[in-house]
Each structure stands twice: as C-alpha cells, then as structure tokens.
C-alpha cells in the first residue's frame, strides 16, 4: 500500500494520448502488432538451475536451489515449492529494498499459483523419508530490468531454471537406515525434477475505454493501461491460473477470446523454452565428457574414499569429531553437529588443517569454486551452514556469487572413513597438488 509515488516515473498527458490514439489504429509505439510478443532470449548460468530471461527490455533471473527439510504436517510425503521474488531497485526507481511491495507479492503469487496448484512439478517424488525428510525447492526470481510485463518474463525464468535444475541423489543408509546420505554429483548423477507440464503466463493489457486488448505490454503501455489480465496455460489446453485483479471491466466474451489467443502464444513460448533447455543440456553433457578423465584419476575406487575435483581433506580430525557426534545420535542431533561444524569450521586447532587452509585458498583462487571441507555429510543443513561461514571468510579472495554456496552444498564432499584417513593425509595432499595443477 505504501508506494513512494514521488520516486516513480510519471507519464505525461501527451504520451498517454499518443499511445491511446495510436492503438485505435492498431499501432503500438514499438512497432509491434497488438498480439505480438517481444523478442525472447533464454540464457543459462554455469550452475544447474540458473537462468536469465530477456523479454525485450525486461530482464529477469531465476535460481533454483534445494534443501532437505521437514515436510508440512498435513502433507507428510510431499516436497515443498517456494517462490521468492526480489524486486531490485536497479530495475526501476519505484522499487525499494526491504519488504516486497504489492506488485512483487502479486508476481510471486501468480507464478506460485501457476506452478503449485496446477501440479506442474511432481512434489511426491521429492519425498525422501515420509514424514521426516523431503526436498524443498526454492525458486528465487530477481528482477534486473523492468521493461514491462514482469510476470511473463519471471514465469519463463522460473520454468527454465526448474527444467535445468538437478538435485543430488540421496539414499537411506547409516547404522539404523534412517540417515539420509547425499551423494555428490561425481558419485551419482544428480536427478532432474519431474515436470509434468509447463504453465506459461501470458499477459494482456486493456487500454482505453473501448478496451483495446494488447499482449505483452511494455513499460509505457503499462502506465497507460486500465486493466491487466494474466492467463497461465499449458499446451495441453488446460488453464492453470488466471489473474485479473480489478481494473477496467471487460465482457466475458473478451476474456474467452484472450484465453484462446493465449493458448496459441503459450505453445509458441513452450517451444522456445524447450529448445533453449535442449541446447543447454547438450552443451553441459559435452562439458561432462571432458571432465571425466580428471575425476576418474583422482578418486579412488572405493566409494568411501571418493573426492570431488579440487577437494582437500580439510581436517580429518574435524571429520572424526563431527562423525563421532553424528554417529552417536540420530537426526535429532544434526543440529548439534551443525553447531559443531560451525565452531570447528574456520577456526580449527588441528595442525594439518592449517596447511590445508592455505591450500584451499589457492584452490579457490584457481577455480571459482569455494573449497569446502571434507565431512561425512548426513544432511544438507549443517553442511550449508558451514559453507556459509567459510564463504564469508574467503569472500575477498573468492569472487563467486552468493548462490554458489548453495551449489557447493550440492556439489559435494566425501565421506571420510575414520582411521584410514588419518593414515593417508600426505598421499592425498600430493594428489590434491596434482589436481590443482590440473585445475589451474
């Protein structure tokens, strides 16, 4: 409700009249037809699950991350999906940092309704231990540039990110078969999310008293419009969500006509998204093939001793400490181990660890990955916490984006077994040096 109108850009009366008069002759100020979309480009980031969408001047980034959490009580065997929007002030002078404004909340809820209620993502497959551990998928949408029609661009960004996101595979194991072991991507291929269908949002703007309908309004047209209708459809002919939050009244027939146009556009956009995702997949698969020789060299045959590429065995003693804690109790003690991990993380008293630290710094400088300690991971949260702490300590040295931490958490560490590790340190360090030279 509190919007700083003083900060926002206002349209002059002349411009308003010009746009409205031009529309009477079916002309739009950027030369498009009334039912033409702007140019859509979809790009992907380095990690799985990050996308950037450009719809004309509008730019939106989407990131997908996952975490193991406790499920809701009334849905014990379903994973959760949460959408967070970030309306950065650099996108528009009227956006402010802090609590999301109305349009941010509305955008989040439209995308959320399209994905969650229509069951586009299969949440039941995200269940690990019914009633105890499920995967929680978090989608972050960052608005970088507001060129109008943020909803459509944000929706496409969310879908593209979800299609390329890979979550680590996890199995039940441990002493009592209740502990969840997360496998690093080098051990087991991370899994894609099961997406049943792609709900595409198509926005219509109603301008003028005779309710001229145009599709994909730009920034200028949004300032002039009297009402807006966002229809989320998929290519199966289902309407997944509709949002027309007040504004100018329209006839029912106009609404149905808009839906029909939207279904055509949705098919078009779905094709574009799928094409972009396919090309990204082939690129990533090609990259993987090149990576293989490295990882095969370094990792030992036994599953217990596998390491990820630049990983160092940070503190074997730390491992043992944490292991001791976690093996003692059950998941209820995970928080305990999390605290322990936090404490023992950066400030460790083990002489080996000090050496490992500087090597880590080198490794982190050489690649963009933040070096992570080698722990027996039972669940993600403690790991993530520790990584956060580490990331802060290396922030100057490491220009990695903040969400790299989450990627790291996925990316992995090894399970060090107890006594054998204590025996092997030197051996591993040599190998690590070799890997460093390989990596850099």
């Amino acid at each position: 409700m509190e919007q700083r109108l003083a900060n926002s850009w206002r349209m002059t009366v002349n411009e308003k009249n010009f746009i409205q008069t031009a529309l009477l002759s079916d002309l739009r100020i950027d030369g498009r037809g009334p039912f033409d979309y702007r140019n859509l480009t979809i790009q992907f980031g380095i990690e799985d699950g990050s996308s950037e969408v450009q719809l004309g001047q509008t730019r939106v980034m989407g990131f997908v991350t996952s975490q193991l959490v406790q499920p809701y009580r009334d849905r014990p065997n379903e994973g959760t999906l949460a959408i967070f929007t970030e309306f950065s002030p650099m996108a528009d002078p009227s956006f402010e940092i802090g609590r999301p404004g109305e349009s941010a909340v509305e955008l989040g809820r439209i995308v959320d309704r399209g994905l969650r209620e229509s069951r586009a993502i299969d949440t039941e497959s995200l269940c690990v231990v019914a009633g105890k551990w499920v995967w929680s998928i978090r989608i972050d949408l960052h608005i970088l540039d507001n060129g109008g029609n943020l909803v459509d661009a944000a929706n496409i960004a969310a879908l593209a990110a979800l299609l390329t996101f890979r979550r680590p595979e996890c199995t039940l194991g441990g002493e009592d078969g209740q502990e969840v072991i997360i496998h690093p991507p080098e051990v087991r291929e991370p899994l894609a999310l099961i997406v049943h269908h792609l709900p595409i949002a198509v926005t219509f703007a109603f301008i003028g008293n005779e309710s001229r309908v145009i599709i994909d309004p730009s920034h200028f047209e949004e300032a002039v419009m009297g009402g807006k209708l966002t229809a989320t459809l998929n290519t199966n002919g289902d309407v997944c969500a509709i949002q027309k939050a007040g504004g100018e009244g329209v006839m029912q027939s106009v609404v149905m006509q808009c839906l029909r146009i939207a279904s055509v556009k949705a098919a078009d956009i779905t094709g574009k998204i799928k094409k972009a995702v396919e090309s990204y997949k082939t690129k990533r698969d090609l990259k993987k093939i090149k990576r293989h020789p490295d990882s095969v060299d370094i990792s030992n045959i036994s599953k217990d001793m596998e390491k990820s590429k630049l990983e160092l065995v940070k503190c074997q003693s730390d491992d043992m400490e944490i292991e001791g804690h976690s093996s003692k109790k059950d998941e209820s003690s995970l928080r305990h181990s999390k605290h322990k991990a936090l404490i023992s993380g950066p400030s460790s008293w083990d002489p080996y660890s000090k050496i490992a630290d500087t090597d880590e710094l080198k490794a982190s400088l050489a690649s963009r990955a933040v070096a992570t300690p080698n722990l027996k991971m039972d669940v993600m949260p403690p790991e993530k916490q520790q990584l956060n702490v580490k990331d802060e300590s290396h922030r100057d040295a490491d220009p990695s984006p903040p969400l790299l931490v989450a990627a790291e958490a996925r990316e992995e560490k090894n399970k060090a077994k107890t006594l054998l590790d204590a025996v092997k340190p030197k051996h591993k360090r040599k190998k690590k040096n070799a890997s460093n030279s390989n990596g850099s």
Partner: protein
Amino acid sequence: MGLKCLAQHYLKSTGPSFILTKKNKPLRRRTASLSKMEFVNPEGLRLDGRRPMEMRQLRAEIGVVSKADGSAVFEMGNTKVIAAVYGPREVQNRSQQSNDEALVRCEYSMANFSTGDRMRKPKGDRRSTEISMVIRQTMEACILTHLMPRSQIDIFVQVLQADGGTRSACINAATLALADAGIPMTDIVTSCSAGFLNGTPLLDLNYVEDSAGGPDVTVGILPKLDKVTLLQMDSKLQMETFETVMQLATEGCKAVASYIREVLLENTKQLESRRGV
C-alpha cells in the same frame, strides 16, 4: 482350491472391510484429497446439503460501525466479513496525493479467531497483501475517483469467520459500505466463487470444498454493465469447462447483486422514514 475356499471363508466371516482397508490404506494416503471424498453424492447433494447450483444463505447489515463513514457486515453462509469505509477525507501522506483523482486504499485482514486454528499472523503476509491489492483495484474501477481529487478513501475489511469465499464476501461487504458512505460509483461490484469437483460445477464453495485441491474461480462483476472486473482462478481446468464455471459464477454474482439492491433499498426507506420524508 483349498486356499480359495479358505479365502472365501475369511471374507464371509470378517467381511471384506478387513482385507480391503489393509490394501487401501497406503493408496489413500498417496492420492490427492480430491478422490478421497465425495463432494457431490449420487443424489446430487453436496456436503452441506446444497444443490450444485445453489448459493449459501446471504445476510447483510448496513451501518454497523458508528465511527466510520460507511460500514457493512456481509455473511455468505458461515463466512462473515465486516467492512468499514472512511472517506473522502484528507490524504494522510502528502507525497501520495493525486491532483486529479481520489486515492483509494484498502486493507484486508483476517481475525485471529476467524479460522479453525488460531492464526498467528493475520496481517502482512503475502496472501493478505495480495487480497488487499485485489480488492483495492476492484473497487477503484467502480468508484468515480475523478469527482474527489486530492482526497483519500480508506476501505478496511476484516474477516470474522472464514469458511471459504472470503474474497467474494469482502468485495460484497466493501460495496455495501461504500454505498452506505455515499461515495459515487458507476455500478456496484458483486463477487462470487465457483469450483469444479467430481465432474460438476459447484457454486459458492465452502472451506472444505475449496481446500479439496480442485479449481476455484472467483469472479467479480459490474452487474448493470455486465462486465467482469475481477477474475481469479487456480488449479487446472480445461478451457471449455472453465467457461462453464465462469458463467456459473457470474450467475451467482447477479443473484448477490439483486440481494444487495434489496438491502440498499430497505436501508434507504429506513433513512427516509427517520427523516420524516
């Protein structure tokens, strides 16, 4: 053959429920709640005894908040909503003042005691923010804001009892309150919701039917102009089915509109008699 006889013997003695429940248990947990319950029984009655095209009982009262310029209580079945309108009055935040039209503000909140479990945070969460914005834009479309420049109209809506369809009840209550405050409008706005469960379109869903996971279509119309201002839908629906459900909801809105007109007419007659006209 011996085993078969044994199985039949068991079935006869303990009844099929013994074996069937054991088999059905895991299935029931996994399937969505849609298939668990029968929302329209074979006789065509819903859970609360209504027919599929039947609305809940409507009840409205005007002038309940004495301090407000206009106020109303609107009940749709068990859903009870109170709305209060203050305005047109001076704009509190000068930076938001508009020189050619009135500023409309709306705040939607649910009382802690309105739902079954006591709510911890009735205001400020995303749903409330969205609904506040929706109500504001819906009412803004029908208020003649250019007649009251440099002023502010506040609409406060509070849900006292929530049993499905709170959005619709809020809009209906806001309409009544605006009329009670004497604010000029092009037309009243009425709203109603409809859904689609067990293959039948249902009008005016209550909480149980709403939370079943089926589609929920909320429509707000300007009855005299026959135009749709508010249209919200969630969950999946085929396009033809959606058209049917939307038309059903529109019919419901028209029924609400005739009731609201009656109430307003009654209220005006009372005012007339009080003034001795």
